[in-house]
């Protein structure tokens, strides 16, 4: 069976890797450190798929998640990738 790209599945929210510069400005905007962010594990299927797709390691990076099914339209979340 063909491998399914879960990133394209409609039930998987959009996950965007923040660039290093974006990370800094994001943290500055909210005046928080990485340790204040919710976590996502490197073992998370979405992170694995993203790593494979971009061919980089994501540990220590920040992921922006856009959830479509929010009562307010779109819910935007950020998660810190940990082991």
């Amino acid at each position, binding site marked *: 069976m063909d491998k399914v790209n879960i990133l394209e599945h409609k039930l998987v929210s959009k996950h965007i890797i923040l660039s290093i510069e974006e990370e800094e400005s994001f943290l500055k*905007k909210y005046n*928080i450190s990485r*340790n*204040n962010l919710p976590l996502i594990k490197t073992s998370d299927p979405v992170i694995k798929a993203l790593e494979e797709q971009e061919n980089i390691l994501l540990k220590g990076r920040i992921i922006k998640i856009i959830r479509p099914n*929010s009562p307010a*339209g779109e819910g*935007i979340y950020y998660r810190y990738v940990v082991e």
Partner: protein
Amino acid sequence: MNEEEILIFGPPKKIKEISFGVLSPDNIRKISVKNIVQADTYDDEGYPINGGLMDPKLGVIDPGLKCHTCNSKFGECQGHFGHIELARPVVHVGYAKEVYDILRSTCRECSRVLVPEERILYYEEKLKEDGVRTGMRQTIISELINESAKKKGVLKDNKCPHCGTEQIKIKFEKPTSYKEGDKKLTPADVRERMENISDRETALLGWNPNASRPEWAILTVLPVSPVTVRPSITLESGIRSEDDLTHKLVDIIRINQRLRENLDAGAPQLIVEDLWELLQYHVTTYFDNEVSGVPPARHRSGRVLKTLTQRLKGKEGRFRNNLSGKRVDFSARTVISPDPNISINEVGVPKFIAMELTIPERVTGKNIERLRKLVVSGSDTYPGANYIIRYDGMRKRVTDITRDILAEEIEVGYIVERHLLDGDIVLFNRQPSLHRLSIMAHEVRVMPYRTFRLNLCVCPPYNADFDGDEMNMHVPQTEEAQAEARILMRVQEQIISPRYGEPVIGGSQDYLSGAYLLTKKTTKFAREQVDQMLYVSSINTDLPEPIIIEDGVPYWTGKQLFSLLLPPDLNIAYKSKVCKKCDVCEGKKCRHDCYVLIENGKLISGVIDGSTFKARSTCKLLDKLVKDYDTDVGRKFLDSVTCLVLWSNGILGFSTGIDDEDIPKEGLDVINKVLNEGKEKVDKLIGSYNEGYLEPLPGRSVEETLESKIMQALAEARDKAGSIAERYLGMNRGAVVMAKTGAKGNMLDITQMSASLGQMSVRGNRLHRGYMKRSLSSFIQDDVNADARGFVSSSYKKGLNPKEFFFHAMGGREGLVDTAVRTAQSGYMQRRLMNALQDMSVSYNGTVCTNDGVVAQFIYGEDGIDPAKSTYGKAVDIDWIIHKNLYQNKEAE
């Protein structure tokens, strides 16, 4: 802190941080004022034994005596710890699990963590980096413990990576003993191993070496709590009864003594071990008398002792009962009753309560005369004062004898505790306090009799009625608290619910049906009636020009009177609740007068009903008044409209009766015909099923298809019967007015009374249980006919036949059970949610985060909108803004 204390201790200090750790033996000895060696409390004369458990150095519990340690009196001395030197160390039950974790992850010989040096470095690094979060720290530590513990007896190479000693698997025998292989480890052995662990590695195992060492989890010295913690009670007969903790300590000392004597005498190993274990048992139960696997220690009478853990734990424990929930002063509780004539902001307070509860008021040049008068009138006449407080904090009770002297004495700077007066702000609460609106601030209005009085519009947020409900009142004592309550918590500030952005405070029942009658086209009032109505609803304006003049007598319409309550620049249009939902809306020419049009604060057309100011519903007008004008405007509107409507209701009269459900014979015939047609349709369905013609619906069996088709047919028949009944039920019937205006009930209720009850159901299915393959013994088995499965074609008015009555009772019982179960379940869910979310807050950067700073939501509610300040959950109501601008432009032209 008073001045004297400041002189002794210096100015008050701010707590920067608190660190928790394990009490070390040295510390226990250091805080101890006495080594307790005697297992007795009092001697024959009733004096405390020196070195006994009630040693006078441990504090005072008898009034009149002085503490032998700090020389202060009873009530001032909080007590002092003593200690017991244990003959042999014992395990502290509270740390038994942690001790086990350390034992299994360290070497039996060199006491080092059983992972190679590079792994140690790895974990140290990880702890430093990710261990900032409490949750992560715990995960890392248990990861390390698991990794090192695996070596013991599980892996083939179970040698210590540091010294090469072979490891033996350690078993934890709950609650307090450990076995290495087959050999039992004594607490002394355990302690020795832990003493050898380096500070660096204890940190890795989750202990803060600066605050506590793991070996302190094995007790060598036991602190003896001060007597103030375990006071003995003198019964009326003069016999002293000791606290449970004292009993337990007596046991500990006695066994400790015996163990020491045996050790000194060189008793055989077996006896020593037995005694040692007994000591362990007593110390264990001293800390926690509900440890599984240990028989609870009992009182001589057989009662289970309440020891340290039991004092703290659970609903009756120190935390939930005494710290999270306290009994408070300045509060009152009594039955509530309605008073439509007070403002929604007010609460009627019985005089006897107002004379008991006080507000401290500082005497100034401006109020001294007023306060002096209050003091002169004393504490037994209202309004008066109960206490005065001098500058030095001396309180003096105002009595009949002292009141004149005290009134003379007061001067600027004194504080007078005066009775509650009209206009004071108080907090009012009804349990269960499920949401913010369960506690609101009201203004006091002192009244006769013994109940709290409440405006009916504030019943919905409290969920209160007057069938015996009681409510609580609290009096904020400081000016800050009063101001805060007045600004943030006052009832008028809570008209719009923070949950769904619609009014929770508003009209209900009579107010809605009455408003309909008031603003109906045909309603008119004569001059004297208008005068009365405007007077009771405190509308203070000139009368508008009368619209109707009959025989030279002027009359005013209800619409004109209602318009007097509206702000003059209000322009709004909406459909009223009684709207017939015509295919084409005729706007303000609506022949049923259902199109509400307000132009420049004048009600041009439409009747006023539920869609205008009903609580807990999308009401168009009240909502706009509060949001676009002011909470003050909203409050005044509600206060006036309720009085106006009640008075007009008194004039017009309103009633309902059984004839409201009357339907003429021909109507009943049609209804019966429709119901019979429905039943015939069911018969036909059953026929085609029996002959095998019935096509199953996708995903269902034939039987299920039949069942769902029957239910459909019957529901259709009932609906038809209902709509036929509705044709005969006009707005001239009280019951219909109530249903259509949203005052009480709905049209379904009325058609059930007049036409047919319809299908009874349990768990969403037709009734089928009771007897074998049938609902009642009078039916044949497997009969799926309408009548056999709980279809009630009678109406309440006509009356039910016995079978129908029984079916109805079945359906009704389910409803009762459901409500009972629902409240229980939702209550528990509420508690859990509250505990989970209580520390969440919106911080200055706009995020919602927990108390340790971890973000839960990046914008509150994902859109940052406060529903109470927005319209229908959206940030802006574009239609309304356009509407308003259009009107303004029209005006300008």
